[in-house]
């Protein structure tokens, strides 16, 4: 009887999986990423590498899992109507090299309604590899992949860019932003336009090559007395010191004591920070959709 129920679920699985795969395709921003997702059961290549499993074994395991296991345990092993999640299974999480998992697949769990399915030993090893990748992928944020961030209305984004958002005060679609939609993936583009400085964090090599980076650096004017001041690119500021590089590249450093000397920092990116209090999420998605069109 349990075997019959299993078969029914297997039928459902065959019907539903293409739908699930389509949903996943819809999340992905590019065809290449989408292809990767559909063949990798929702995990990235980074997850397979991180789990130190053989990609070929993972791919074979995907087929074997779909054939024998998915009907009860769900397409991604996260549980189904007939059986528990394997991604949250203590036995699976505790497993090394299949020592715990393989006997269960080999013998089944008749007391809990899991039949002996007759997988070959190589098939069992492949399913073990596939499961290890699934648990690794769930637990490692570094292997996660972003979905589609281009959901806004490009026309509304264009209007916002030129009116309410005042983006056009500093930027031009045909000037500094020409081709920006080709230069960056949509997620990177959204991250960077929201906060160019934060967006560059961790990618300093790339920023050094970027022509707009110098213009975006904060500048400072330190006034020691009326008529005696130093201006340049801000090097460092805290409550006790301020330092800068002037137009000749010379370095100047000053001791601060409260309001003395007078220090004025000018951050050309301040508007980006100030706007964070004003944007709606729809504004953000619309502007991203618009910038993506600037190919």
């Amino acid at each position, binding site marked *: 009887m349990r075997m019959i129920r299993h078969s029914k679920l297997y039928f459902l699985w065959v019907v539903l999986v293409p739908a699930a795969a389509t*949903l996943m395709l819809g*999340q992905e921003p590019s065809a290449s990423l989408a292809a990767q997702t559909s063949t990798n059961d*929702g995990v990235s290549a980074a997850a397979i590498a991180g789990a130190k499993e053989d990609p070929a074994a993972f791919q074979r395991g995907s087929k074997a899992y779909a054939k024998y296991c998915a009907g009860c345990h*769900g397409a*991604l092993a*996260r*549980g189904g109507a007939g059986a*528990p*999640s394997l*991604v*949250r299974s*203590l036995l699976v*999480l*505790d497993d090394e090299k299949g020592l715990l998992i393989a006997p269960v697949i080999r013998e089944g769990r008749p007391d809990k309604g899991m039949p002996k399915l007759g997988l070959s030993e190589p098939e069992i090893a492949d399913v073990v590899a596939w499961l290890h990748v699934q*648990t690794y992928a*769930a*637990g*490692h*944020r570094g292997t*996660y*992949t*972003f*979905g*589609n*961030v*281009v*959901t*806004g209305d490009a026309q509304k984004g264009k209007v916002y860019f030129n009116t309410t958002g005042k983006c056009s005060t500093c930027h031009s679609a045909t000037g500094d932003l020409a081709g920006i939609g080709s230069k960056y993936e949509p*997620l990177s583009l*959204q*991250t960077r336009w*929201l*906060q160019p*400085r*934060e*967006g560059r*964090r961790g990618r300093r090599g790339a920023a050094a090559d970027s022509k707009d980076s110098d213009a975006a650096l904060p500048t400072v004017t330190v006034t020691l007395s009326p008529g005696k001041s130093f201006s340049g690119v801000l090097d*460092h*500021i*805290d*409550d*006790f010191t301020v330092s800068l590089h002037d137009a000749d590249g010379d370095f100047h450093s000053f001791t601060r004591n409260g309001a003395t000397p007078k220090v004025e*920092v000018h951050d050309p990116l301040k508007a*980006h*920070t100030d706007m*964070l*209090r004003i*944007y709606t*999420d729809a504004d*953000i*998605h619309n502007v*991203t959709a618009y910038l993506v069109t600037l190919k």
Partner: protein
Amino acid sequence: MNFSRTLFSGICLALPCLVWGQGLDPAALLKQPANMWPTYNGDYSGRRFSPLTQINSSNVHALSLAWSARFTGESSGGIRIKATPLLVNGVLYFSAPNNVWAADVRNGRELWHYQYPPNTGSTIGNRGVGMYENWLYFETPDSHLVSLDAKTGKERWKVQIANPKLDYTSTVAPVIIKNHIMVGIGGDHLDNPGFLESRDPETGALQWKWWTTPRKGEPGIETWPNEAAAAHGTGQTWMPGTYDPELNLYYLGTGNPNPVMAEKSRKGDNLYTCSIVAINPDTGKMAWYYQVSPHDVHDWDANETPILIDGTIDGQPRKLLAQASRNGYFFVLDRTNGKHILTKPFIDTVNWAKEINANGQPIPDPAKYPSVDGVLVSPASGGATNWPAPSFNPETGLFYVGSSRAYSMFYLTDTDEHPQGWAGLDRAAGGDGGALLAIDYKTGDIAWRHDWPSGSGVVSNLSTAGKLLFTSNGNYLIAFDPAKGNILWRAGLTSSPSGGPISYMLNGKQYILVAAGDTLFSFALNQPAE
């Protein structure tokens, strides 16, 4: 008269060193001696207020380095001492992931070093050790509780408290209450159950275990869609709590629910995650709870120290508890029963709640749940504040906390019906930077603020009866006037202060000590007091 008092206290303070290794009577934790810092927060209240006055606002300009000492050991990512050192009978005990050291408080000289073997656990941080008689207790990245002989650093025993393959990791400084070791746990990369447990200080045997989320038939299970969701709902206990000996209640903040950023498989309030709970340390039974973030989806653990304040509300003396929570709101509760008194945002950018309900709880706005295309949310993912220690000064009535006013874009990455683990990612979107805040506990109003020109604002604090507030910015250890909010003193260190500053008396002289990276720095007045 001054001389004799100094001489007398000098003898008293020197005495414990003559019987070095005498150990720590748990009763000493009830009244923090001037020559000790015997538990993570100095005393059970969590307020990190030192009654010492020798170093004070009129002489702090003469505060200067007594010694510094660097410590080495094996830890993935290098040694960074996020611990608050304990000081007991002239010896400092402190830790970093996989490492414990003992050092002579007179000069920082290492007395012993305990190296825990390499393992796969996360080395994100370790908050310190707990002490009971001659024994130290230390939690490891691979979730063992280790007991060391404080005299020698030799391992006495170790017990496993959770399975590291399930992605648990441990960072807590154990808190000792009577003959109970309060043992917490961390790790939310997979959807594993959170808990607090009590262990026997002699044997490490389990005395009781309290699961953070309810099981079948227990109160609170109705705040989860099903038992499996609750059992995998996490709510970790990765910070030391506070304790009221009169009420015999241990107060603890709990962490975020799992899956962290995906909420569809865990509709409901998700008790007792992101909550402040009161636990009887003898029985492990929960006396009350208050949830500061119902149904959290932004990783805003409520583990921040719940500080105990014996204060006055509307003219009536009250036993209070206050937390500046990672979600951006400041809460004051009655700690006898958990009844709500006050809720107020302490950063002005908070945008994730649509209302504050009658019980003072911010109710999340579904429009700010992480989405595939991203939502802009403040506080940022790291929170308006985080684990670094706040301080409460009973003389000013002000609660001092390091804060951050920033935004993140929160993205949902796992749209499956059964999302797993983090299930989402975030990207920094910038903001207005960090600030030191002084909050009036009676109103939640900001009495004064100091915005930092650069660097992180989320740092640890210590206030003293010498009318001083110690904090840090960048590599500087800084002293403020705690009433007015102006800077009185600073010292530039070799790296950013990484743990909470402490203060103590030694041979009649007051010291301020802080860990910065792999180095301890000890400060004293460089001229005689008075």
